[in-house]
């Protein structure tokens, strides 16, 4: 526990180091140790750190945390249901604080797709090959901390040509009886020509203590693999989240990532990065953040074009209500060899209240000449003209506003290819906007 | 004026032109017709010197000079003009400034002094009226935001301004409504004279009702497979290209 000591001190000297971790055969122990020294060297970011200039993470680390936490919890069917997507036919994977609960789960069986505890897969060659190897994680202090001291997580592997009849829904349950720093770690590997749909959602069970989640997911798409990856971030107020999702795409692969940040975690920081290491890939990054109260939502995305002929397309939209704080930083890096790159990025924001604010940094860093790249940013409020039009047709102000927000978000939700999920999101957005407007 | 002998060309290793032979003399109007993909536009590109085409065999003599040895700009300066099928847009470069630069480059090549602004504007006005070109488009950026018809009319206006010896019109009629087509054709007809030759590339006979050719050549599979007069165009309009294709295949199989 800390309180007078800084979080950095606490981690560096106050907790058992990575060598205390008991992984099945310790195959990843060297990587853990390396990560720990990397963390110590990097230190924790301050607002003077360029990538954190708009998110004062120190403020969220002042409380005393413990790294020890519940490995199981009583999850009622009602609680599970709250985090489930109605009408969605899917496999179900339930984790409590990052630990797979097989009794609550419904895993795909007998096929080429396996879902297991990361700790059980410690001897797996894929895990050894990919664990903490993503180049973009190397400079991230929280990712290093996660690699060094993570408790457990998921390992999902899809074999060559593997495909599933329905999506896998992963429900992350977070619970803490005392302020806890929870570190799940996941690895998803799709082998050649495999296809998978993953939907992640989260639920917080206990708001008497703070759950600080520092999660890392590494994604590997081998040649011609395709992953639809949905992440729905909607938990309780007393939770703070830092996510790193880092994907590696080999030739001809397709990665579709959707990120929905909804109320009401105090802090959400998403680091989404994609390294394109093979040609002719397709990357679609869609994000919607809808923040209310004093929520702080920070999306950092990074698309790294290393090779020629890749296409990336990014659209992030934000709706900020009340006193909410939004941050968007999107970077497109086109390396000298990455000719014929098409890379587009757009970030649009709607400020719905006087006190909400947005900080945005869309960045292009380009070293190849035969490319098409662009980025765009807008912030504004919805058109008074449209609002008036709707009201003159007899629609009440709240309903009209809600309608306009939904219309604004439509570009994102429309890209969701699962109807049940699409409906679920539309309904969530409607509820949150109505709640905030009525406030 | 222009002699093409056994011209073979390829692009990215794919053979496109497979032995073109053609003779064009002063004052003549030649129409090149043919089905899609027969090599019509490739022929114009090779003559104008587009870089991605490689000539593998044959020669082209233009006004006594070996055309294929010249850079694209020198071909233009020697008097070869290509009206593009898809004229490019160049933002920020005004039509007028562009034309003045082009005209004076060509004049310098022929050891003529550059045109004074006054003379240039006079010439511009004269040619605008001749080909019925909207003066409002003169100060706009080159082709930027022009409609399809406006772009094609700009090509004909440039043709009038630069006064080449041989003008190649590459599908100038495609995408034009009948009114625009009439205006474009009228412009071309006004520019016809005993010293100038034209090569009109088209997919449709319609254009040839307005611009009457002296010769019609049918291009198929990279070769000129038939040559005739304007009646050939009518025949093609009626029967399509299939009968010709069959004829060619029969010949090949013999």
């Amino acid at each position, binding site marked *: 526990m800390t309180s007078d000591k800084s979080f950095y001190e606490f981690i560096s000297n106050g907790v058992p180091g990575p060598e205390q971790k008991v992984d099945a055969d310790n195959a990843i122990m060297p990587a853990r140790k390396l990560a720990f020294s990397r963390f110590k060297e990097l230190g924790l970011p301050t607002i003077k750190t360029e990538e954190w200039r708009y998110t004062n993470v120190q403020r969220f680390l002042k409380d005393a945390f413990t790294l020890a936490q519940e490995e199981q919890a009583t999850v009622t069917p009602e609680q599970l249901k709250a985090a489930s997507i109605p009408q969605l036919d899917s496999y179900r994977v339930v984790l409590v604080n990052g630990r797979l609960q097989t009794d609550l789960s419904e895993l795909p069986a007998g096929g080429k797709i396996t879902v297991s505890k990361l700790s059980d897969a410690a001897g797996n060659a894929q895990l050894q090959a990919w664990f903490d190897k993503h180049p973009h994680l190397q400079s991230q202090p929280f990712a290093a901390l996660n690699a060094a001291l993570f408790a457990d997580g998921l390992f999902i592997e899809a074999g060559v040509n593997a495909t599933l009849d329905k999506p896998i829904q992963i429900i992350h349950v977070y619970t803490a009886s005392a302020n806890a720093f929870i570190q799940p770690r996941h690895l998803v590997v799709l082998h050649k020509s495999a296809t998978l749909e993953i939907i992640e959602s989260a639920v917080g069970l206990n708001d008497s203590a703070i759950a600080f989640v520092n999660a890392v997911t590494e994604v590997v798409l081998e040649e011609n693999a395709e992953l639809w990856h949905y992440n729905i971030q909607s938990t309780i107020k007393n939770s703070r989240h830092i996510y790193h999702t880092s994907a590696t795409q080999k030739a001809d692969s397709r990665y579709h990532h959707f990120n929905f940040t909804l109320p009401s975690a105090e802090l959400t920081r998403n680091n989404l990065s994609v390294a394109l290491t093979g040609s002719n890939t397709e990357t679609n990054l869609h994000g919607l953040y809808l923040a209310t109260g004093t929520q702080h939502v920070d999306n950092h995305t990074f698309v790294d074009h290393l090779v020629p002929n890749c296409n990336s397309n990014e659209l992030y939209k934000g709706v900020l209500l009340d006193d909410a704080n939004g941050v968007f930083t999107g970077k497109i890096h086109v390396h000298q060899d990455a*000719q014929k790159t098409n890379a587009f990025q757009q970030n649009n924001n709607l400020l719905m209240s006087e006190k*909400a604010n947005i900080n945005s940094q*869309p960045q292009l860093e380009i070293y190849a000449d035969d490319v098409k790249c662009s980025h765009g940013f807008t912030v504004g409020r919805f058109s008074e003209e449209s609002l008036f039009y709707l009201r003159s047709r007899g629609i009440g102000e709240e309903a009209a506003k809600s309608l306009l927000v939904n219309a604004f978000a439509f570009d994102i939700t429309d890209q969701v290819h699962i109807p049940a999920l699409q409906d679920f999101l539309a309904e969530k957005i409607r509820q949150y906007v109505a709640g905030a407007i009525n406030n | 004026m222009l002699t093409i002998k056994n011209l073979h060309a390829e692009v990215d290793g794919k053979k496109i032109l497979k032995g073109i032979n053609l003779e064009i003399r002063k004052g003549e109007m030649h129409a090149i017709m043919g089905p899609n993909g027969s090599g019509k536009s490739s022929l114009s590109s090779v003559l*104008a010197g587009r870089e991605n085409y490689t000539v593998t065999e044959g020669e082209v003599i233009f006004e006594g000079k070996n055309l294929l040895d010249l850079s694209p*700009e020198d071909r233009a*300066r020697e008097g070869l003009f290509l009206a593009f099928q898809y004229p490019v847009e*160049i933002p920020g470069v005004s039509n007028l400034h562009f034309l003045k630069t*082009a005209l004076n480059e060509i004049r310098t090549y022929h050891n003529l002094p550059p045109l004074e602004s006054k003379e240039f504007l006079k010439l511009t006005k004269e040619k605008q009226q001749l080909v019925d070109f909207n003066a409002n488009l003169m100060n706009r950026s080159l082709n930027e935001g022009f409609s399809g018809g406006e772009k094609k009319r700009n090509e004909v206006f440039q043709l009038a301004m630069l006064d080449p010896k041989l003008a190649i019109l590459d599908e100038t009629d495609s995408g034009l409504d009948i009114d625009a087509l009439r205006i474009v054709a009228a412009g071309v007809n006004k520019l016809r004279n005993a010293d100038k030759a034209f090569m009109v590339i088209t997919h449709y006979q319609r254009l040839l009702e307005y611009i009457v050719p002296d010769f019609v050549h049918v291009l198929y599979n990279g070769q000129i497979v038939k040559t005739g007069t304007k009646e050939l165009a009518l025949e093609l309009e009626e029967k399509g290209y299939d009968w010709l294709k069959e004829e060619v295949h029969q010949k090949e199989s013999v």
Partner: protein
Amino acid sequence: MRNSNEIIDDIANREYEFGFTTDIEMEMAPVGLNEDTIRFISAKKEEPEWMLEWRLKGFQAFKKMQFPKWQHFEMPELDLQKLSYYAAPKKKKQLGSLDEVDPELLATFEKLGIPINEQKALAGVAVDVVFDSVSVATTFKAKLQELGIIFCSFGEAVRNHPDLVKKYLGTVVPHSDNIFAALNAAVFSDGSFVYIPKGVRCPMELSTYFRINAENTGQFERTLIIADDNSYVSYLEGCTAPRRDENQLHAAVVELVAMDHAEIKYSTVQNWYPGDKDGNGGIYNFVTKRGICKGKSSKISWTQVETGSAITWKYPSVILQGDDAEGEFYSVAVTRNKQIADTGTKIYHLGRNTRSRIISKGISAGLSDNTYRGLVQVGPRAANARNFTQCDSLLIGDRCGAHTFPYIESRNSTATVEHEATTSKIGEDQIFYLNQRGIETEKAVALIVNGYAQEVLNQLPMEFAVEARKLLSITLEGSVG
């Protein structure tokens, strides 16, 4: 036909046109930077005590500061102790007319094509020439005096208009703003001062030509322009420097103050020596330029054409304090060989209904790096603020870099901020089209680049625009095959 590599090599090898030096006897300060240096400069300039004190405050701030680390290039090691901080042509007496100016110097201006002669006077250009930091000739003073306009060297202003200088000096760029501004505050040698009284529209473009001549000197000029209520002024600044193997530092400060309904238009064509093709020598152009729209409905507009310097690192900024105030930034930055440009603007929307517009066109060739970095900040009071930003990058060749780093901070829900950026290269089809009309590739590129930069060049006063166009053509002629 020549291939693109040959053409690129050709421009890379093209020599810097203005790389000659002038042999004039100089009076220089001893090498090194300490309090004595500052006292030396102040004494040389016969400054009053308050000026010296302000300089020393700047020096105190400077000593506590470090070079920033956020830039997108490798910061060269600068040894500020090896520079001399004061250089002035030795023959120094009050000059009344051009005839009294050193003929060598006039010959230099002639080579630069500076509009200092009578014909240019008829064209309506008043020139304050700053030669190695000291103003030697100011023309058309009389005519401006009639209107109550003050246009003089900074030193003169300190002597003759101390109240105005005291009132505004450091109010826009404080002595401790950043390390280079602090350095400038401590050691600035001269510069220009402009005051436009209430209701006066300055009838001619005011122009200053800066030129670094002496070896091992930094140029630290300081410009202060105040436009009082309902006034207007257009100010031009042009820069060249001779070719030398070692690097030279240029750390100028420009402060603009616009009162109610006043407008200041500030144009720069910067053509400092960029170094040779291997990146040896060249000017480090680290300049702090900032304007404040203090009054309501005031307007400040920055236009810059940047083709020179080894490293250009500057962000002409506007603080929109008055309601309905307007800020503009138009920029063309061209880099080639190993040049680096990290430039852009910062616009602070503080007042209500404030508007800003940013148009930036970067062109990179060779092994150069060209970065747009800009901040648009909308404060909580800035109801209905509007910003539009367009950043375009044009790449010539595949060994250069183009980067766009905008920072957007909006704290008011009624504000509208739009940012667009694109990156492209010169299209082969565009070149071919122009070739087919008889225009050779070199000219075609110049034409396309000028067209690309048109929106910015249009903002320049006529005479300057012609020069800028020529500069762009010379700089980039034929860099595409």
